[in-house]
């Protein structure tokens, strides 16, 4: 189902308006110094001339703070203390302008949230009710390394439609039934063949402008314990100040905390982003902490992304090469460098 359509840019505000008539539409909106995904109030707000959003769109599916349940604690309420589902809006949504790296992250996160045996109900519902319209990337950042992570500036993983900037207009590659249905509420699209537009050439140019970071397959081949015990971590961890910036900006960091908050005689159970960088993340009630040292926490983050995930799901790494952590780290710990060190780690041959 690889249909390609074309629409002029001048029609695009109309396209967004049509979408907004049927869906809740989220798109990159320019803020002070950056772009962030936000629900559109009008079509003009959407700004597709962005390089990438400062935060990944993961918050649209796994909000930083989400009400899971609510309950009453009133003395006279017979239902007091019984935890109940909270109302949520699962009406259909469109996320417009997702970069291919970020879209692929959702596929990677599915391995955690949507498994055969256990499904995270909110994640799954949101994934089902959201159409992902991607926007291919023609000018990757200097910190981008998507191609090394099995993605690419024109990658279609995790997308229902991929838009490509074709100068005067956008080409839309329809990738799923959901994408087709969503696009059908808009107008002005004419079918084209890829030969007409210089898309293949653009794709190649974009791919070539992305730097090569490291080879995750080489890390997959190493033995887990040897990597774990590598002396590299001592050097990697020195600069780390153990903040959670890298994990919070990361599209594939999904870890969360569950907390109760009470306000008067009403309470709610919240789920909140958490980070393996924080000592509290693993602190036992007894006071024992299996990852009490900074080295252990830093190692956990990189090992999880680049080794444990690959081993556990027999797939590529839990990294899409968006480069946000490289930009956000206050002390310049660069995952590309760490990945290279891990890949180069000399290990004895597995028996």
């Amino acid at each position, binding site marked *: 189902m690889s249909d390609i359509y074309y629409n002029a840019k001048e029609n695009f505000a109309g396209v967004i308006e049509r979408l907004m008539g049927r869906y809740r539409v989220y798109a990159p909106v320019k803020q002070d110094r950056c772009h962030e995904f936000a629900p559109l109030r009008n079509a003009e707000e959407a700004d597709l001339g962005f390089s990438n959003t400062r935060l990944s769109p993961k918050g649209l599916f796994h909000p930083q703070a989400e009400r899971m349940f609510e309950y009453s604690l009133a003395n006279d309420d017979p239902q007091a203390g019984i935890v109940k589902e909270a109302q949520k809006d699962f009406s259909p949504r469109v996320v417009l302008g997702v970069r291919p790296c970020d879209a692929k992250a959702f596929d990677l996160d599915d391995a955690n949230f949507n498994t055969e045996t256990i499904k995270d109900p909110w994640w799954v519902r949101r994934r089902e009710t959201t159409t992902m319209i991607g926007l291919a990337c023609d000018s990757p*950042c200097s910190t981008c390394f998507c191609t090394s992570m099995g993605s690419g500036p024109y990658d279609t993983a995790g997308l229902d439609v991929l838009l490509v900037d074709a100068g005067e207009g956008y080409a839309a590659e329809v990738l799923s039934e959901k994408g087709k249905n969503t696009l059908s509420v808009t107008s002005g699209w004419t079918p084209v063949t890829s030969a007409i537009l210089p898309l293949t050439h653009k794709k190649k140019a974009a791919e070539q402008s992305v730097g090569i970071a490291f080879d995750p397959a080489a890390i997959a081949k190493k033995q887990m314990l040897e990597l774990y015990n590598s002396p590299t971590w001592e050097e990697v961890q020195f600069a780390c100040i153990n*903040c959670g*910036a890298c994990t919070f900006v990361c599209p594939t960091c999904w870890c969360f905390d569950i907390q109760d908050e009470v306000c008067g005689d009403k309470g709610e159970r919240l789920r909140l982003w958490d980070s393996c960088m924080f000592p509290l993340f693993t602190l036992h009630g007894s006071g024992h902490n299996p990852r009490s040292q900074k080295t252990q926490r830093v190692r956990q983050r990189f090992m999880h992304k680049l080794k444990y995930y690959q081993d556990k799901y027999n797939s590529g790494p839990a990294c899409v090469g968006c480069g946000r952590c490289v930009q956000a780290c*206050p*002390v310049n710990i660069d995952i590309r460098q760490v990945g290279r060190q891990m890949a180069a780690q000399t290990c004895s041959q597995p028996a």
Partner: protein
Amino acid sequence: MQPYSESIREAAKRLLLEKRVDAVIGFRKGTVPFMNEPFLARTPEQADQLVWDGNCAINLANYLPKRTGSVAIAAKGCDSRSIVIHLLENQIRREQLYVLGIPCQGMTDKRKIADRLNGRQVLQAEENGGKVLVSGRDFEQSFERAEFLQQNCAICTHKNPVLYDELLGQPVEEQQIDRYEQTSKIESMLPEQKRLYFDELVQPCIRCYACRNACPACYCPTCFVDESKPQWLGKTTDPTDTLTFHFLRAFHVAGRCTDCGSCERACPVGIKVRLFTMELEKQVKKLYGYEAGMTQDERPPLDAFRSDDPEPFLG
């Protein structure tokens, strides 16, 4: 500022060879423009990686608390004052330390430069004399570095280290300047305007605690945000929670903050968190005539009192 790199390397190698110290804390060249990585050189060979330029803003005193063994540390004015605070608070002993003092000409603010580039990406940045030459895919531009300093550096009045074993350059000239222009503006707002201003200020906060963790004065074993019995604030991004965090974080460093700007630089979403600490610095100076980290002979202001301290809070 290039010569500093040479003199740091030279001093580091000498100290390591003489076994005067076990390691040297400095910076090595970063992987992206305007960034250097704090680095611990343990051998003379590693000391060759040490660099110093206008991208060494992170306060290295942050790496001192609870260190064992002896260590040399490259310290600009603010770092050296934070070291004094550490000494006063027994986070490290003076005999463990060898301070390589660096008279500082200010640190470059990459955000200010980015603002001038209208989204064009910097692939390389090079310092040359007082200029920074930045280049990207199809552009090159030169900036007067002095005009693109971090805000805390632009208003810095203690560029020269206050404590050192060795000074790696000629002292630079200190400036006389009103440090509190920004906070005075806020002070003169109406209560309602202040609320809105600070709600908006912390709105982008993602609670990553980079500001806290980049701060040398924040070393509590359990931070108040992690206390659970009772829990003082929620972990959400609700403005009440984020404001509580930023308010208390600033209060904890009152009279200890040297305005090194690490917090503001570390913030991944660009919040001007120094607006919280600056006002406290101003009040501490006004009420108690104290500037953090200038001398080891005086306790920090909240660990001291005078019988005639002013009581502006009464009434």
